[in-house]
């Protein structure tokens, strides 16, 4: 089989995985197969409770599938120790939360460069000065220059999400995962944010996985899967 070869092009490769939060419970997530190609923009659709969080925790290596293989960027996460998975995540994955993404006690720029503090590899991928790069990213995400030195608490939700996007993009991680980042934004801002995010992900040559329960966003993406269909587990509510 040319499986090994395929792996290199695949950013995400899940095979026959099964996960349950507690051994005595039915699995929350069972996926027979899920592949994401490099630099793809994938939309994962699913209502709450269908295992989105579980899937994301497996993709980021926070949790381990009890069965099957979770392979990210050709690396089988099940082979790594917890601390190796932490390092792997810090180096290769940019993550955007639903909301309240930023640490309130750090400045906007400090929030953006945070991933580089935990990963040397990501810091090395930044050619210029860290602060300059952060500002450049924020500029490209249309954050007004004047806001960059303000405390994050003075920013609107939309602006905060753009800072979070910049943080996910810094150091050009191979994979960017966005967990409902637009749920707190209004419709127009939502689309604008997604367009900006995609544009910047392309510039960084990153793959984007975007998770949302909002089906209206689906049309913005080239690829889309419905987690309800993909997840075979009976356990989810």
């Amino acid at each position: 089989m040319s499986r090994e070869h395929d792996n290199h092009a695949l950013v995400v490769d899940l095979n026959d995985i099964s996960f349950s939060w507690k051994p005595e419970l039915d699995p929350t997530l069972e996926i027979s197969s899920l592949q994401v190609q490099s630099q793809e923009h994938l939309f994962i659709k699913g209502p709450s409770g269908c295992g989105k969080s579980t899937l994301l925790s497996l993709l980021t290596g926070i949790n381990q599938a009890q069965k099957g293989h979770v392979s990210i960027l050709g690396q089988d996460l099940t082979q790594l120790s917890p601390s190796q998975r932490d390092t792997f995540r810090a180096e290769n994955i940019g993550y955007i939360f639903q909301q309240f993404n930023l640490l309130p006690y750090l400045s906007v720029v400090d929030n953006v460069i945070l991933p580089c503090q935990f990963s040397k590899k990501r810091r090395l991928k930044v050619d210029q000065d860290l602060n300059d790069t952060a500002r450049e990213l924020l500029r490209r995400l249309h954050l007004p220059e004047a806001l960059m030195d303000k405390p994050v608490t003075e920013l609107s939700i939309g602006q905060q999400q753009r800072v979070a996007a910049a943080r996910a993009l810094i150091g050009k991680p191979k994979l960017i995962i966005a967990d409902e980042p637009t749920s707190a934004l209004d419709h127009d801002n939502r689309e604008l944010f997604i367009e900006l995010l995609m544009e910047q992900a392309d510039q960084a040559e990153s793959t984007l996985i975007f998770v949302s329960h909002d089906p209206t966003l689906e049309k913005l993406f080239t690829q889309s899967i419905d987690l309800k269909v993909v997840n075979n587990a009976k356990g989810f509510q």
Partner: protein
Amino acid sequence: MKVITHLALKSVLNRKATAILTILTVAVSVVLLLGVERVRTQAKSSFANTISGTDLIVGGRSGQVNLLLYSVFRIGNATNNIDWKSYQEFSQHRSVKWAVPISLGDSHKGFRVMGTNQSYFEHYQYGSKQPLTLQQGREFDGVFETVLGSEVAKKLNYKLGDEIILAHGISDVAFSRHDNLPFKIVGIIAPTGTPVDKTVHVSLEAIEAIHVGWESGANLGHTPDIELLKQHQFEPKQITAMLLGLNSKIQTFALQREINTYRQEPLSAIMPGIALHELWGMMSVAEQALLIVSGFVVVAGLLGMLSSLLTSLQERRREMAILRAMGARPRHVFSLLISEASALTFLGITLGVVCLFSMISVAAPIIQQAYGINISVSALTAYEWKLLALVQISGILIGFIPAFRAYRQSLADGMTIRI
């Protein structure tokens, strides 16, 4: 680690109010702990330094603490006087090097009056065998002359040459004053930090002289004229106690036994060191209670810190999740909280020590004046360092509780954020 320190610092600064309160709680408990410890040790040494060089104190038969209290500390009253003949006999005993007679019972404006003789100035010692020295003037010579302790002079603002009136007994009221017999101040003793400072010293003859006509305990109205009394040679009939210094310490027990079994009158002889020890033992209950209370204050302070850390933890779950997503490992989260608890404790201790020293430098003269206890602004002792280290270690250990909880939370929560 630098990242974690930086984050911990920024995070704490973001919760300034709580952090400052936590630091203050720890600081207050440290001030109390060290303060109590200081007062305790200094009071103890001050106490043990009250009398030295004296081998035996002899008085009417009573318990040794009682005898010590009235003869040395001027607290309470003698149960019984001793006969002048007993004094003469023992002061000439072959193993006795020197003897100081003491006669108590009168007072001046709340300060006790003590009748004695010149041998008192020669032989009485305090601290580490320091003799009494006169700050001003000379020892008393005539009958109606007095030498004051430093505090008496200071409090009542007396100078050499002033005349004072003694009162019979310890209550200074009009009908009990020896008011036709004023005493002239001829000397003031340098401060000693002992009850000597609060004593008015006169000669034994003076005690006899002012009580002529007072034999029944009150003035019956035939006190003779002062000039007449000055002519008269007084021989004391009774004294309250005597201090003995021996030729050799080996004889102490033999002489003590001899005095305690003296046939002519019931006497008690005590060794000041042992009596002081017993007295301190009685007070050490209070001292230990104080130490325990301050220990509990430290515990309360640290528990306060624990509760504020645990409360903040709930609010900080999101912070932890963000850090985890950014690549922080659970051990980073762990050390974030440990370093916060350690730093808060450390700052609390530092602030506490600074507060303590500034308080001591302000309060020391007042305490010295009011209680005669000398509390110096000296460097921390080894024991105090140990106490502080104990507080610091407890602070770090207490940090393990929220740290461990945050660790477990961040493992369980992962990327999902529960608020």
